[in-house]
């Protein structure tokens, strides 16, 4: 058996700024304290503040104008929830009638017992027995997919599982990227043609799992865990390659959505799965994917 180990010198480090230089138009980036607009006639949005009759930026980012609303979208931030977002979250605590959940936001999010589906889609009021069985369904460390139902006044999010499509996640891999890199789209559950399923959480948590052939109508809600099931090696190779491709896109600061993931996966087929951890391979995949996305836009 051979051993793959590579020690690169810092002198050979890839310059990631070359990728950004290939973009045609560079948007204006505002820094904190910079004047955006005079206050008269405009409304202040997120990322701004008013001082001396001027609207100024409070974060480093790009300006966004919606009619008379001026806001600044930061390039890197924690997840700020919006109602209806699909998120992948990890349970951090089990409390009396709810779970405390980590969604990469400023505060822990809340998943109420009344917001989760019962096994098989049973519809009834939650009882004390359900409270006692909470840990049996979702324990600390478990992953769930859910939707944002509400945003409380202090900024924490209330999640719910709208249908049996959501719920507890089974075998697979979680990839964490910045939330700003995940494109905001309608569809977040993708069955990719390469043979894996991807959930693109708006909070930057991306879940990759093998595609279930027995796609029952509505799904199971995660109640039946398949821990005894062994994921075949072919599926495992696809998932590892997808994971490394998504991390390559994140490293190169490219937007992550189904088309870019598919392009990155196709570009990665010329490498072995473990070679995708090398920075030269990451740079090459980012460059080729960027070129293909640019060609597709024209």
């Amino acid at each position: 058996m051979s051993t793959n180990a590579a020690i690169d010198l810092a002198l050979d480090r890839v310059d990631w700024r070359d990728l950004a230089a290939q973009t045609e138009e560079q948007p204006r980036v505002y820094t904190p304290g910079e004047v955006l607009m005079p206050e008269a006639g405009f409304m202040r949005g997120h990322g701004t503040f008013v001082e001396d009759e001027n609207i100024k930026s409070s974060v480093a980012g790009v300006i966004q104008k919606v009619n008379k609303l001026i806001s600044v979208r930061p390039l890197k931030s924690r997840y700020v929830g919006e109602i209806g977002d699909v998120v992948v979250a990890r349970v951090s605590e089990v409390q009396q009638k709810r779970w405390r959940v980590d969604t990469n936001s400023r505060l822990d999010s809340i998943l109420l017992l009344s917001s989760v589906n019962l096994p098989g889609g049973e519809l009834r009021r939650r009882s004390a027995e359900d409270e006692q069985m909470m840990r049996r369904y979702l324990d600390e460390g478990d992953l769930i997919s859910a939707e944002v139902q509400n945003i409380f006044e202090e900024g924490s999010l209330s999640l719910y599982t709208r249908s049996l499509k959501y719920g507890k996640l089974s075998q697979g891999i979680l990839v964490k990227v910045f939330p700003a890199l995940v494109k905001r789209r309608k569809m977040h559950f993708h069955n990719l043609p390469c043979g894996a399923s991807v959930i693109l959480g708006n909070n930057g948590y991306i879940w990759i799992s093998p595609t279930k052939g027995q796609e029952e109508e509505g799904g199971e809600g995660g109640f039946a865990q398949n821990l005894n099931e062994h994921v075949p090696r072919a599926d495992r190779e696809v998932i590892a390659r997808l994971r490394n491709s998504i991390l390559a896109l994140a490293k190169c600061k490219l937007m992550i959505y189904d088309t870019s993931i598919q392009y990155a996966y196709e570009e990665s087929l010329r490498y072995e799965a473990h070679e995708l951890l090398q920075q030269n391979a990451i740079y090459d995949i980012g460059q080729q994917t960027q070129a293909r996305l640019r060609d597709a836009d024209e």
Partner: protein
Amino acid sequence: MAYVALSEAEKTYILHGVEDDFRCDGRSRRDYRPMDLETGLVSNASGSARLRLANTDILVGVKTEIDVPNPLTPEFGKLEFFVDCSANATPEFEGRGGSDLAQELILSLQNAYESPLAFNYRTLCLIPGQQCWKLYIDILILECGGNLHDAVSLAAKAALFNTKLPRVTATMLDAGITDLIISDNPYDCTRIGIETVPLLVTVCKIGDYVLVDPSAEEEVCSTVSMVVSVSMRNGQAFLSGTHLTGGGAMHRDTMRNCLELGLAIGEHLDRLLTKMLNLEQQRVGLKRPQIVGFLK
């Protein structure tokens, strides 16, 4: 160790991957993640190195001092390790939170370097019984992404390779008091031979198999790990220390597998590190350092 929360299904997936010899990122059980190495980036240290192993980032500085030898070993120099678990790595290291991990790493390194066969302390001796070099090896952990022991030992060995000791040009003896005169020329220095300096290899037991270079997720799935200290002598790998971490138990056969795998991997790593250090020395040269550091 820095804790990563995982669900039972994720652990099962990782376990099955180890059984199939195909881990979550496509590596086999004997593969390392890519490493990034630079030496000489701290200008006020006698030797320094920075190693980045995927998500693990280690910065090592070596400082030298003239000291009195230990009376029990008058012909030997001294070596001292200090590990700083920076809270930049994880907020749990704030204050005294990282002292347990730091102490574990210090004991690992002391145990590995204890034997005079693993580190030649005689080269640090100036005057037997009176004067010797003392090396302070300060290790700064900037990021924790699993496999700290290997990264720390590789960075420490690279820093020792980079260490420059000023040459002692003259010795004055006056009424029993010894005085050393050190050369003014900054290029007039001696280097430490690192051929036998040991490396630590973490061999991690997951299920019925053992693997090297565990990531943070794989460390959570493991019940026990063995840190094997490997020292090369005359082109052959020797064991210079071991210790177990984690709360689990280990069968005798598994322990033998760990030792064999650790020695084989340690030999391979040592050759690779030596090759890359010599290559960097050739490319950078001795006079005008070209430091990349934390840029790019």
